[in-house]
């Protein structure tokens, strides 16, 4: 059966071609294309059928799904009903149980090599921790991954292991890249990722038929190329040397830099400062809360959120480097003083002997 193209689906929903072009223009902007390239998006949407998507959830909190359904550009309705065909999702599917599992198997057979596998949550290496309906999560994932065109790891858990993998990692949780190596995997970390980044990655795959350009860690460059710190709306205060010292001081009221209250912006790669959240309304730093670095690997173990720390290599221990450093230098100085005293006494004793 010939599948309807995205354009035809849009018309079916009672929208005009003008609405369709508006959608394509917004989409081009979201995935970081030049305005002049909008026609590429239009051409792709006119030709491409809706892409089937299987969305699996493992050791997660559904936060990524919650973020996804708040996408504004493109609107989540247009993504769900026009661009993709979300065939299986635990959070949003109307059907359940036997029926929905059949639907998943149906997609995996009929659209082999065409469907996109979206994964939310990490996987435990020990099946005992996550087995649903007699099938381990690991098997479910590997089976679904086999026929997938590409895999999208939504969120820090599926990308890095995330909170389930935080120390002491009781389930021995691993990122999904640990279980698959013959498929392109796009990492979209964040706790949760920005909704428009989530839909933008799918839009890119539909538009160009390929996965977006990835950085050395496997994240789409379009969204994870820059540090929050370098795009921050409070950056001027950082360079000026104006810092909020606590959450209730004058600096905090004036909107000073949150560096000294533990902002992880300088070590975090994400698009928050450019795309912002909830349709571009705001993002944590703009709202007065320091970045917690949620899209970085092991963010949960990188020390307290509201304090600047350094991590002792190959450990889970974070320390205040300046305090510990000063103490270490003090101890050394005390040792030196003691050594000097002994040296002087010994020398004196030696001279008296002579």
């Amino acid at each position, binding site marked *: 059966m010939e599948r309807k193209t995205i354009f035809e689906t849009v018309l079916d929903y009672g929208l005009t071609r003008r609405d369709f072009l508006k959608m394509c223009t917004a989409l081009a902007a979201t995935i970081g294309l030049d305005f002049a390239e909008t026609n590429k998006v239009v051409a792709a949407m006119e030709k491409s059928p809706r892409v089937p998507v299987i969305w699996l959830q493992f050791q997660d909190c559904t936060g990524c799904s919650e973020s996804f359904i708040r996408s504004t550009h493109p609107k989540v309705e247009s993504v769900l009903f026009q661009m993709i065909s979300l065939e299986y999702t635990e959070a949003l599917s109307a059907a359940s149980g036997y029926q929905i599992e059949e639907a998943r198997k149906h997609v995996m057979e009929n659209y082999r090599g065409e469907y996109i596998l979206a994964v939310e949550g990490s996987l435990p290496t020990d099946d005992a921790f996550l087995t649903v309906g007699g099938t381990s999560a690991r098997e479910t994932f590997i089976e679904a991954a086999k026929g997938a065109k590409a895999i999208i790891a939504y969120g820090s858990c599926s990308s890095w292991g995330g909170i389930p993998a935080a120390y002491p990692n009781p389930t021995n949780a691993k990122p999904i890249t640990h279980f698959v190596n013959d498929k392109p995997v796009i990492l979209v970390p964040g706790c949760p990722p920005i909704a428009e980044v989530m839909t933008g990655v799918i839009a890119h795959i539909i538009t160009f038929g390929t996965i977006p350009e990835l950085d050395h860690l496997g994240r789409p460059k379009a969204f994870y*190329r820059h540090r929050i710190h370098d795009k921050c709306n409070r950056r001027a205060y950082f360079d*000026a*040397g104006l810092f909020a010292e606590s959450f209730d001081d004058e600096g905090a009221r004036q909107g000073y830099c949150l560096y000294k209250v533990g902002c992880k912006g300088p070590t975090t790669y994400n698009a928050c400062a450019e795309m912002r959240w909830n349709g571009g309304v705001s993002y944590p730093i703009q709202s007065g809360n320091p970045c917690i670095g949620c899209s*970085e690997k092991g963010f949960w173990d990188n020390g307290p959120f509201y304090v600047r720390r*350094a991590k002792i290599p190959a450990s889970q221990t974070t320390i205040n480097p300046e305090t510990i450093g000063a103490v270490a*230098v003090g101890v050394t100085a005390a040792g030196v003083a003691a050594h000097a005293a002994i040296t002087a006494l010994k020398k004196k004793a030696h001279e008296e002997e002579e």
Partner: protein
Amino acid sequence: MSIPTNPKIENEKMKIVWKKTKRAKIVPINDRVVKVYVWELPVRIFHWINALSIFLLMITGIFIGRPFVSAAIQEEAYYSYLMGWARYIHFFVAFIFTINLGVRWYWVYKGNEHATSNPFRLSFWKETLETIKYYLFMKNKKKHYIGHNPLAQLSYWIFIGMGSIIMMLTGYYLLFEPQPESIYGKMFMWVAYLFGGNSFSVRSWHHLVAWGFMIFTVVHVYMAFREDYLQRNGTMSSIFTGYKIERNSDEHDQ
């Protein structure tokens, strides 16, 4: 008048250094005392540029990590550039530090016997052990060294050698990480894999090793003064003039 030679110096053959060829210049003062040109001019220049660099890098570095003063003019960011200047000085000095160290590496090959060190010898480690015993006031067979003793050499390998390399690699990674597409960004991209995988762990290394330099400085300065105090051989002035005083015989013990 023939130049009196120090039999102790001649016999030592400088077992623990790399080269035997270029001996330090010896200038007689009188029958009993000679002065040895231990630290050549490039070594002394390196030492002081390095010391000043480390001082400036540490001050600005602590400020960048934990800004201990705020800009004087409050409210608007427009009037101040305090962190900007701290960062600028930090980066500028970092380049001087790097070039300076490069010159010093060149001098390892070009300089005299005291400008080099060879830890790939068993005698180096045996003598290091004797030197440690000496500093712990234990019975020891530590020799008399005109240049650095092997423990001092080891500390330079660890701090000025390894420490500097770690600081430069992590530092340049952090400097260029906002431009991952640039040639410099790509040059140092691999550093993250070596130091824990992400920006935070690279930064942690940079902070912790910086304090290693501070501990080194305290011990280094103390040891230099102590040597001067015990040997009365001009150790402290030698880093300005290059000369140390040695007896022109082997009558002294260590």
